[in-house]
């Protein structure tokens, strides 16, 4: 599939539900959608357009917790990033792990690092942090800062 075909198909299916479309360069596209459309968008790019799930990035921003799902289209050298912004006080989104097994671990990581709740995740437990990590402490949030040279601590 060419870039034009992929772009046309995504625009065709998601249509007016696309919040923002950014053609950053010939090989990078950023598409912002609403959180409730994530399963449909993921099914489209993963199952129908046969993209490979590279990884997802969670970011704590002033406007909310942002998740970016990076999909690699290896036959045309393009990365399509599907972006969605969640409410900072109650970040909840549908898990895509049942659709794409490769997303299972990164969702566990985003849960423990940023406190995002993934609904219907098959196996939600700590991935990187210790099992006895205090509940409700999410180290990749901006509440945690680098204190001095050595430590990352919670803002007081």
């Amino acid at each position: 599939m060419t870039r034009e075909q992929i772009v046309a198909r995504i625009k065709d299916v998601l249509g007016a539900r696309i919040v923002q479309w950014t053609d950053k360069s010939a090989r990078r596209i950023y598409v912002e959608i609403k959180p409730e459309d994530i399963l449909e968008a993921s099914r489209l790019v993963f199952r129908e357009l046969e993209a490979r799930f590279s990884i997802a990035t969670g970011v704590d921003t002033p406007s909310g917790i942002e998740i970016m799902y990076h999909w690699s289209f290896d036959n045309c050298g393009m990365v399509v990033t599907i972006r969605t912004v969640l409410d900072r006080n109650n970040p909840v989104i549908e898990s895509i792990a049942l659709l794409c097994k490769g997303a299972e671990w990164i969702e566990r990581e985003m849960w423990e690092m940023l406190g995002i709740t993934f609904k219907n995740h098959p196996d939600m437990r700590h991935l990187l942090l210790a099992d006895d990590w205090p509940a409700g402490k999410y180290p990749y949030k901006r509440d945690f800062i680098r204190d001095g040279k050595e430590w990352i601590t919670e803002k007081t």
Partner: protein
Amino acid sequence: MSKKTIIPIGPYHPLQEEPEFFRLHVEGEKVVALDIELGYNHRGIEKLSESKTFEQSVFLVERICGICSSSHPIACVQAVEDAGDVEVPERALYIRSLIGELERLHSHMLWLGLAGHFLGFNTVWMWAWRYREPILNTFELISGNRNHYAMMKPGGVRRDIKAEDIPVIQKTLDDLKGALDLFRGAVTDDPVIHARTKGVGVLTQQQIIDYCAVGPTARASGVAKDVRKDHPHAAYEFLDFNVISTQNGDVFDKAVVRILEMYESIKIIEQCLAKLKTLQGSIDSNPKEIKPGEGIGQYEAPRGEVIHYVRSDGGNRPVRHKVRAPSFMNIATDREAVIGQSVADATIILAAVDPCYCCTERMAAVDADTGKHILSSAELIRMSREKTEKLRKELGAEGPRLKL
């Protein structure tokens, strides 16, 4: 009903870049389930990078891995360059590819040695690591360091390849070719290695696609994806090389893919050296600032795709830096590959994805009911070796002959 036993593997080993902890659930000899635990060495590098400048974060990500210590820097600088639309001089692109391929050579050599060690072919181990040494010496010649070469920076590379070093590097490659032929013969023709690795730990094409596995793990199962070809970066679009792919997805095919890839790496390095003889010019575009924006950098590390995401707000530090190493995708496939296999094969199956999995040294078996240790790490490797020895006797073969 046979008794279920849990075998914990891990979590630490000094050789391993990403310590993991595996819990093998076995019934008799058969593996019935696998738990994987990560994070024993989580260093918060993504968070730490937010407090470093773009130039400093390259040194930071270089420390993620000691074996493929230029894969993360290349992906990182490419992400920064993608975010800030930074141009890179052509000579620097060739140097990046050259360093990347030299690294692939020594990384695959390391894996080959370990695989030989686990299977009980210690001669393969010794010789593979002996031939890895000249490559590390080459790195010392180029950068002053055997590992952590500190070659990459946003906008170019830090050190040039000197004209007088090119014949020395070429000589190292010429010597290596003979050794590679030897390893290819030793692995592909030996009936005992066939018996130990063929049809063992098979991953199907569909499993690779579902788990989004990358690198030689994917290519051995017929998924011919290689970021160097698919998402051209560094100088790879100007270089002639093949993506090696096989169909069976077993341990044998993973070894074959890696061995054949080393030939392609040599081919690439020779092309880079030829180009560097004639191509003159700057090696660094010296970007003064990174404009606001976001960028993604991909690089085909020895184990598969490394991907970095960097967001800049126009300051001199990233506001977000995401790092994903290939093993993060590949290790998850272990639970498909190892189920139903025998304990003696588990060592080599878990090692076959090359997760820098050396913590087999710390294997210990615990009886699930009593909590009593019944097998030590040494015993599990011994089991693996005994199986090889038994097969060797049955087949009347002596194992790979390495005459040098």
